């Protein structure tokens, strides 16, 4: 089997001592940033990008993959022991996990989270290895109009579906697209948004943008909100599970995986929606519904499996189509470009060994994470005692060093500060960071596909819907954009039909709205901690 032999080659590459070492570094770093609220894998990968220029691309990506998966494991520890989600995808875990910990079952909660993450991560990665080549086979037949449509869908869906406010989402997307426009026009060579500044004509380096928005913006935000009443970590021994816990956990793990992977793979899937869906499902199916809200193990097992499966799912469009759907994948995509690797469906053929080594390293990383997280979760939680000024001073130092080292230009530091201030203002006014970073990264590629389409059709805009897939996607985009309007209309009709008035109206729509509002609330919660930039939206 082709996939099988490629994967085995991948394992051979990933298990060389150096690459294995990078995998270990990656998972350790990833767990650490996952545990700390506000820091996340996207920021870490962005900070490490300049440092890894000297490495083989394969080693760098193996490390990045470890960081990405590690963040998912680490987030649950903080959720359970501190009731503060380390990552936006662990928000749901905190609901039951912290209750379990308070009831003295922290060990079981940590164990089901870690083992569930491992199970889901392994199944998810297997699905990734199987699905990605199929998606590629399908994707190579697509032309520019379809790509343009798919990218539009990803951008609009991330902006409109996730986050608390569409207006803020679109404002953020607009900022991102504008930043992506800076530089020379790729076709005509005209200068755009350079303000007569010759140093801007190369465009803004994506590393500088990512480091500024994630690291500098976050550091400024934390500095502005430094004082907060400290909490205690709930004391816990070594994580373990009894027979009863296993029995109650394995089904939620599998169901969580089933929710997580497809949602992660969809453009605008992210990890928040599947974790929430998994929670609701477990609540409904549970044989112990009375325990929900008081610490039900199913409520930890399902969502934790879902977020790890979503992480694997996210990598499918990233590797197969060059389409990132969350912040970490976006930064990893930027990393591909900075290594001179063209992301897209041709990636599997042109960079086959790298891609398969990356996938193999995900399996290895998952196993490593289980080993370092299961016995050591309480130790990781000690990281939270670190005084944050030291932590953020270090991050700012690395951010500055990294931004300067990209081009060795002092001008980049000015850009870093300006965009860092922008990142701070965005957090201050509740603008999500994800649409901006996707706009910066996908914007130029979106433009490239648009220009190609229009060149092929000799400037006729009808070329944009010349492929059937493009038409289907435009219809989906239309539905997404018009959804709030349709929903309102639908509700009004129903309210008119039922004369019972406002009580019935709010009652009948409550289940639907609960889904939306809780996942939005989760965004806001993580935004409050300043962690939304690294959330997997």
């Amino acid at each position: 089997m082709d996939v099988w032999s490629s994967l085995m080659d991948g394992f051979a590459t990933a298990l060389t001592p150096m690459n294995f070492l990078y995998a270990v570094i990656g998972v350790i770093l990833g767990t650490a940033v996952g545990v700390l609220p506000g820091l996340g894998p996207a920021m870490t990968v962005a900070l490490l990008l300049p440092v890894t220029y000297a490495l083989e691309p394969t080693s760098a990506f193996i490390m990045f993959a470890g960081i990405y998966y590690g963040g998912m494991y680490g987030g649950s520890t903080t959720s359970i022991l501190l009731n503060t989600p380390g990552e936006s995808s662990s928000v749901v875990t905190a609901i039951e996990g912290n209750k379990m910990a308070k009831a003295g079952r922290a060990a079981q909660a940590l164990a089901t989270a870690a083992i569930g993450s491992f199970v889901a991560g392994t199944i998810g990665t297997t699905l990734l290895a199987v699905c990605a080549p199929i998606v590629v086979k399908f994707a190579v037949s697509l032309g520019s109009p379809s790509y343009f449509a798919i990218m539009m869908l990803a951008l609009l869906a991330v902006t409109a579906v996730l986050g608390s406010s569409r207006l803020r989402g679109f404002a953020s997307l607009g900022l991102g697209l504008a930043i992506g426009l800076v530089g020379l026009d790729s076709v005509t060579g005209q200068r755009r948004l350079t303000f007569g500044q010759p140093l801007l004509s190369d465009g803004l380096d994506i590393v500088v943008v990512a480091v500024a928005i994630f690291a500098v913006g976050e550091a400024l935000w934390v500095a502005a909100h430094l004082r907060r009443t400290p909490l205690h970590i709930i004391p816990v021994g070594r994580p373990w599970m009894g027979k009863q816990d296993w029995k109650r956990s394995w089904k939620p793990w599998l169901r969580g995986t089933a929710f997580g992977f497809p949602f992660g793979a969809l453009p605008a899937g992210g990890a928040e929606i599947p974790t929430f869906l998994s929670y609701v499902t477990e609540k409904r199916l549970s044989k112990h519904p009375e325990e929900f809200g008081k610490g039900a193990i199913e409520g930890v097992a399902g969502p934790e499996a879902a977020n790890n499966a979503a992480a694997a799912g996210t990598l499918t469009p990233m590797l197969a189509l060059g389409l990132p759907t969350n912040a970490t994948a976006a930064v990893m995509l930027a990393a591909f470009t900075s290594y001179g690797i063209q992301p897209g469906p041709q990636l599997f053929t042109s960079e086959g060994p790298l891609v398969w080594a990356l996938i193999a390293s995900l399996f290895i990383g998952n196993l490593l994470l289980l080993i370092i997280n299961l016995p050591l979760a309480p130790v990781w939680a000690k990281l939270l005692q670190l005084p944050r000024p030291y932590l953020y001073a270090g991050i700012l130092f690395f951010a500055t060093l990294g931004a300067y080292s990209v081009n060795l230009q002092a001008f980049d530091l000015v850009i870093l500060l300006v965009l860092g201030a922008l990142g701070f203002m965005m957090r201050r006014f509740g603008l999500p960071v994800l649409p901006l970073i996707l706009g910066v990264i996908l914007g130029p590629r979106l433009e490239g596909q648009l220009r190609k389409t229009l060149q092929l059709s000799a400037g006729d805009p009808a070329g944009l819907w010349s492929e059937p897939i493009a038409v289907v996607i435009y219809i989906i985009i239309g539905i997404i954009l018009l959804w709030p309007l349709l929903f309102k209309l639908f509700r009004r009709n129903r309210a008119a039909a039922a004369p019972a008035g406002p009580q019935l109206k709010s009652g009948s729509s409550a289940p639907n709205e609960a889904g939306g509002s809780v996942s939005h609330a989760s965004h806001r919660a993580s935004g409050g901690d300043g962690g939304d930039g690294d959330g997997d939206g």
Partner: protein
Amino acid sequence: MTIVVGYVPTPEGEAALTQAIAEARKSNTKLLVINSSKGDALVDNRYAQEPEIQTVEDRLATEGIDHVIKQPVRGHDAAAEVLDAAEEHNAEMIVIGLRRRTPVGKLILGSVSQRILLEADCPVLAVKA
């Protein structure tokens, strides 16, 4: 006049509190309990949480001592908070708990107790756990 006690939820802190209660009863004065944190870390085990403070509150109430419990989180270190409180309330005595330290440990780590001992304007009673 007041007696100020620096409280932390550790054996040292408990020893200091016990001693402070005895002193307050002896001189029949008000007891001011200070438990503070800089508030710059997400987790600080020396900052007493709700149940621990409740325990202290209950204990002082059953002992029948006129008391105030303060938990300032203002970015100052514990020594500064205790000294501030002592000055503000014109304290007649500060009670603190001491940890056993090796000379090397003393050299490496700065000490809250040392700063209080050196800078306080009133007598300081140091208790070992």
